[in-house]
């Protein structure tokens, strides 16, 4: 039997989206009282929870800490129930460690770490349900959590994946599309300045196609930015109204 048809002739994907459309995004900021900042975010069925502590005094060994700026400490993890198959994920899982590193790189590029010498910013992200674009959901959730914590950053960090299939660039891949094995690009963008915080490509893609895929991802990040901004402003407005400011 033929494999899945990821993009129909009529231009619809398996879940009914068109090539450039994002999944439904829902987000909430300030979900935990005890953390400095926290956020919960759903991108389709991918659900992520991000918590931020800091900036605070450096904990642990000071040897590796940068001198003149804050240390960004990221930890990415996946809940045991996040995938179709229940799987215990002990700490130090290779994929998670790599993802943590990616998050760290992403946010070091966006945070104004120079304002906080000798301190540390902790970002913890957990994926509650994985349905593709885990990295992106993690970045977006962490961005909201950082905003909630009031930690200065250059811009939002919006991340979105994009794939390439038979001459068409698909934005925001879900699990089925990811599992199909085509090339996939993850882009973390500072949308207003159009700076790229992180760009990762997981398979070979011809150079000629790259601009198109990158373009699709950029466009998707822009849309995401608009959506996240709406969430943030709503949150701000509520909070400001309550505080009577």
């Amino acid at each position: 039997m033929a494999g899945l048809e990821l993009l129909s002739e009529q231009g619809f994907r398996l879940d009914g989206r068109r090539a450039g459309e994002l999944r439904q995004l829902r987000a909430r900021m300030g979900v935990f009282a005890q953390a400095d900042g926290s956020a919960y975010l759903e991108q389709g069925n991918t659900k992520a929870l991000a918590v931020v502590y800091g900036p605070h005094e450096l904990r642990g060994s000071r040897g590796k800490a940068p001198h003149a700026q804050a240390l960004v400490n990221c930890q990415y993890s996946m809940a045991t129930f996040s995938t179709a198959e229940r799987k215990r994920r002990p700490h130090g899982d290779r994929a998670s460690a790599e993802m943590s590193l990616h998050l760290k790189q992403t946010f070091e590029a966006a945070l104004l770490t120079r304002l906080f010498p000798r301190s540390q910013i902790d970002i913890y992200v957990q994926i509650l349900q994985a349905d593709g674009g885990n990295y992106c959901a993690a970045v977006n959730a962490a961005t909201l959590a950082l905003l909630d914590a009031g930690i200065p950053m250059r811009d939002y960090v919006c991340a979105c994946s994009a794939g390439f299939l038979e001459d068409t660039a698909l934005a925001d891949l879900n699990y089925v599309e990811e599992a199909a094995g085509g090339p996939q690009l993850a882009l973390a963008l500072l949308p207003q300045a159009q700076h790229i915080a992180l760009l990762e490509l997981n398979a070979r893609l011809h150079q000629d196609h790259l601009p198109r895929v990158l373009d699709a991802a950029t466009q998707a990040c822009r849309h995401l930015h608009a959506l996240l901004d709406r969430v943030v402003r709503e949150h701000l407005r509520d909070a400001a109204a309550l505080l009577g400011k």
Partner: protein
Amino acid sequence: MAAVEMRLPVARKRLAQGLPRGAGEGDRDLVAPGDTITTDPGYMRGHGTYMDNEKLVASVAGVVERVNKLVCVKALKTRYNGEVGDIVVGRITEVQQKRWKVETNSRLDSVLLLSSMNLPGGELRRRSAEDELAMRDYLQEGDLISAEVQAVFSDGAVSLHTRSLKYGKLGQGVLVQVSPSLVKRQKTHFHDLPCGASVILGNNGFTWIYPTPEQKDEEAGGFITNLEPVPLPDREVISRLRNCILALVAQKLMLYDTSILYCYEASLPHQIKDLLKPEVMEEIVLQTRQRLLELEG
């Protein structure tokens, strides 16, 4: 069979619903990171902003505040930014050579120098080497203190002092951590509430609730903790106050003596444990809010 209380999940209520809100009026002042505040080079860059190609750009999500030529963005929720004269409550995290490190919800741990502390008994003298050795006898890791900000360093770290009998080690009581932005600045942050307990509303968001001491003078500035059991009614009052403060925080109402007191009074019809239920919280805070408005009005 004992009745078990069950809570079913319901849609989250929008907190600000029902509150009067000028349509889009405040929007102009709300910014998010990356938003350009002004391109006018005449403004000065304040907190929560950065310069990017001659443009003044926000770096946090919050409200724009302009003071003359200075533009800052104030985030709604941040860590504590120390200012000289603030009253803080903090916890000792480390004992060092001549100072203590104090966690005050600031971005860096605060410092309490041995020299900026009144010695037990109120002795005023140069600190000797013996004093340094006895530091842990005065305050050790985990102890809570109340103090005043003496100075703020360039990197934002805070130096504290307890050179008044008001300040010092805290004994029996309950600590509630809230966002510093919810603590209203007032003349005094030590309140003996008429309901039978006292609170210290630290500017750093640490709030200390404790039984009102009987004789003020003796206790003050002391480092000896009164370990006598607190009577049950006092404990109940303290618990109720704690829950009231949590309710106020949950509904984002500013904390000060009046608001706490009104909330306490509004909560009296309810059991203490019920105060943690969202609907009760909402109800009592609403009452509080109304009374406060009447008071102002």
